[in-house]
């Protein structure tokens, strides 16, 4: 658990994100670093659900797994990255975040989490 917290803290620190959450495939939070007022369970549930729906679309067309999904809003980004079939990494980022840097850090973190989970 501490390991996951460290990884999430590293992502938030290095990318300028506002929060991060690691979610199990059934929508339960494994670890999280979220700003005040943001419900961990809701983020976890939403992340798992939306990524799952996207994967159902891809499987309908026989196109494999969905790697990443993000919702862009006026207040920022919600980025959900599938870590195989093991977990979903959710990141909350402000609107002025450097998306390139953010995606790079997410990729690094996802790799580290995958190694830890296997």
């Amino acid at each position, binding site marked *: 658990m501490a390991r996951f917290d460290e990884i999430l803290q590293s992502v938030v620190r290095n990318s300028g994100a506002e929060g991060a959450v690691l979610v199990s495939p059934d929508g339960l939070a494994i670890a999280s670093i979220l700003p005040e007022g943001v419900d961990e369970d809701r983020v976890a549930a939403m992340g798992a659900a939306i990524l799952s729906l996207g994967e159902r*679309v891809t499987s*309908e067309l026989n196109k494999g797994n969905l*790697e990443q*999904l993000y919702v862009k809003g006026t207040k*920022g980004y919600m980025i959900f990255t599938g870590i195989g079939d093991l977990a979903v990494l959710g990141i909350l980022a402000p609107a002025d975040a450097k998306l390139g840097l953010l995606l790079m850090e997410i990729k690094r973190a996802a790799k580290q989490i995958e190694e830890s989970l296997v």
Partner: protein
Amino acid sequence: MGSNDKLKQILDKLYTETGASFSGIFRKDNEEIIKTIYPEKKKNLSELIKLIIERGHQTNEIIENFGEEYIYAEGKDISIFVIFVTPEISIASIIEGDAKFALLKLVHVAAAKKIKEILATPEEATVQEVSEQPQEEFKKESTEEKSTEETSFVSEEKTEEKSFEELIGETPEIVSLEEEIPELVQENKNEITIEDVRDKFAEELEALEESHKEELPEDLHGLESILSTPSEIEEKKSEEKKPEEFKKEEEILEGEIPSLEEILGVPEIAEQPTKRENIEEEFVKETEEKEEKESEQELEPIFHAIEEYEYYDPSVLDKIREELVVEIGPIGNFLFKKRLKELDINPEKITQKDLDNLIKKLLTDIIDTKRRENFIKKTSKFL
């Protein structure tokens, strides 16, 4: 063209430009318009997309006023793009193969803009009204609309014809010569000369001349004053103002050519031409001054126009581009170049008008209201 047809057109364009295998415009409660190469999977895909749209809206429950704009999902060989046009309407596309995010976003944003324009027109049928009507009823209505359009067009034509007939009816009858001078016609059925007509109307002509006698001066001098231009009249008046003595001297000069001895011996006569020259010079000066003033007035707007063309430093374009990128992301670079090309702005000769037009154009590319306001604030110093 109804709003439904326009929406279909927008979707067709989106579908073609993205190379999508599935595209749709969705309303909150019912699906709207779908285009796909998988008709057998249309229903399933449509349901899944609607659920994704719903989840997208739920982000507001997680973060207050999140303000969802779009969703982008990608796999190895597939991309999904959903854009929220309004809280009620969304556009979604599924693209197989390698898809460029920037292009997808650009095309969907453009389609969303067009849909907003359609919805903003109050005369057009709303998407809500269209979606609630079954297809058949909509067809009926469309034919009825067409028929009403046709009848209104026909009635306009009829009114035009009527007015034309009225015009014809009102024109006075052309009176023939036979009717006017029947006796002459009877006497000389083959020939009617000008003299005959003149004799006939001689009395009338005399009466006409008498009535205008006061207006028409008999002497040539009076006639000249009527025929001459105002400037010529002024010249004549100035000549008339000359003192009598001077006029007498003129007569003397015109009458005999004096010898050199006479000229030298009579200094008074020699001085007269200078006085005459002075008056002429003054008159010439006055006219020249008048002409100068008139030419200045004509040139004034040109001078003003020249003042307007003060050129800005080319770096101002970079500043505006940077502000745009801050608001809408890296795609701002592409859009900025596109608008610059569309407006045919020369970076070496940037006028105030160029900047105004550019900023107005760029504002149309920023969908979000707050970002648009930010952009206006930051670029207002250039306006």
